[in-house]
């Protein structure tokens, strides 16, 4: 069995995001970049499935600039077997990414596809769903538990007010939620060895996908600054302020 995991290179979650002066996007020059945290969870799940003897190969795919190789190497250090980089613009739209991934899937024929539920840069939360649709594969999104059967995979999903468990026929698409697992720290010797694992590079042209933008970013802005809070002396005062100052009750 083969598992394909898609990973994205995003601004590290510890970095304070700054909007570019011309409001066209977010500053990424000289900013620390890392693997999208949800994708780390996806990869961890794939590696655990392999370690449990239920998969033979974990392929790590990234779509992005040439530096996304580093993100793939991180994935290989965590336990991926080989990497594929589709070298393209860093700001492709979810539908384009889904089309590119579909083309990779058609080349690789994996039995299972695991993605993060969203990337922390634009929080789109679309790629996995679009990919499932394009491939015509069943999808289990927001997974908090994944159990592999012979030809089925059971996925417990986080939904409003509880959990829902689905049985999907394989091949299938899974997107991961935060509680699925806690990703490991790569072992240092494996980081050294990751360099020797195979990593192929493709272009959108190789895959026959048109990457033209269909959406236009109008403006990116900082959220409004939060004003300082105030302490109230009593419940009465709180109610009074909520009613007369904040006018919310």
């Amino acid at each position, binding site marked *: 069995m083969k598992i394909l995991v898609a990973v994205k290179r995003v601004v590290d979650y*510890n970095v304070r995001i700054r909007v570019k002066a011309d409001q066209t996007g977010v500053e990424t020059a000289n900013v620390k970049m*890392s693997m999208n945290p949800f994708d780390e969870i996806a990869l961890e799940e794939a590696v655990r499935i392999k370690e449990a003897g239920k998969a033979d190969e974990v392929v790590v795919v990234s779509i992005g600039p040439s530096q996304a190789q*580093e993100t793939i190497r991180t994935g290989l250090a965590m336990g991926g077997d080989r990497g594929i980089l589709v070298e393209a613009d860093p700001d492709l739209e979810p539908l384009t990414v889904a089309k590119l991934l579909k083309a990779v899937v058609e080349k690789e024929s994996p039995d299972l596809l695991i993605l993060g539920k969203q990337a922390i840069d634009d929080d789109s939360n679309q790629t996995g769903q679009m990919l499932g649709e394009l491939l015509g594969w069943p999808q289990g999104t927001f997974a908090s538990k994944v159990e592999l059967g012979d030809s089925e995979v059971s996925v417990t999903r986080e939904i409003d007010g509880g959990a829902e468990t689905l049985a999907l026929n394989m091949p299938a698409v899974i997107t991961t939620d935060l509680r699925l697992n806690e990703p490991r*720290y*790569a*072992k*240092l*010797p494996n980081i*050294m060895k990751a360099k020797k694992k195979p990593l192929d590079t493709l272009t959108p042209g190789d895959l026959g996908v048109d990457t033209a933008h269909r959406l236009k970013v109008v403006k990116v802005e900082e959220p409004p600054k939060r004003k300082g809070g105030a302490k109230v002396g009593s419940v009465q005062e709180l109610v009074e302020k909520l009613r007369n100052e904040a006018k919310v009750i």
Partner: protein
Amino acid sequence: MIRDQETLNQLVDTISRFVRERLVPAEEKVAEDDAIPEDILQEMKDMGLFGLSIPEEYGGLGLTMEEEALVAFEIGKTSPAFRSIFGTNNGIGAQGILIDGTEEQKQKYVPKLATGEILSSFCLTEPDAGSDAASLKTRAERDGDHYILNGTKRFITNGPHAGLYTVMARTDPNNKGAGGISAFVVEGDTPGLIRGKRDKKMGQKGAHTCDIIFDNCRVPAENIIGGKEGQGFKTAMKVLDRGRLHISAVCVGVAERLIEDALHFAMERKQFGQPIAEHQLVQAMLADSKAEAYAGRSMVLDAARRKDAGENVSTLASCCKLFCAEMVGKVADRAVQIHGGSGYIQEYAVERFYRDVRLFRLYEGTTQIQQIVVARGMVREAQS
């Protein structure tokens, strides 16, 4: 000489993240319990932290000195107690065997040190032999194909937990100086090796030292490091020489952490209507600390690169240990000062670090001993 920038970045990033996410949050607990939690210890072993400086053919990472320094900068950013537990396997506990040991000795012991399966210690200091280590009294007397060790070693880091000890002992009673000393590897379960009571230390809680007492302890003759008598003091000095740059780098890392804490506090704390970071006298403390830590970082990297290029850096390494250990002491002192009364209260990490860093000026050669090494090196060079 860094071998591959991309791999190194990943290595440093992974360690930095592990320090920030796993070790920093556990600092207080480690200090309170005077112990490193079992799960964290296991994670450190799994990651490979016990074999940073051990060559790849023995299961380690074989980092260059520059790479090791960059890693130590990151490890410095949390309690030195964490580093102490894997510090001996990378440093004084393993290097004797690595530098001067026979191939059999390396094959037998080093792979287990690289994985952290066993911890190691370095036994040089004695009750009556500290800075003047060459005057040590522990005896090793030949008896057939064994040596019999008798004597007491003091303040031995990881002594309570180690499974392997590098022990400097006098094999030639007629030679009272360095030439009469040999180095041995002694396994932890050898009868006659007795671990003393744990020392109650000023700081670095979670890292442990104790006396190691040898009472008619029979050690196989093949355990003499390098297979030759009389080489032990030279071995010990080579081991300490190598460790100086590592300790210096840790001092830089701790200083950077303290500066970060102090800056953060100074920007939040308001007095006289403004953040104290706006007061010039507080700014002076911040600026002096920053400049000194930067000087430390630069000199450690320079010396490390020279070492990797094959230069003899003995004098420079002592310069680094001398400067960086004193520097982190000053930085810690200012960090407490910037915190005001809060800096004296355990709720803030600077109170703990202030005690932790005091050790750096004392062990692996006191500041005064480094001064002597540097000055002697200068004179020797001028004479040659």
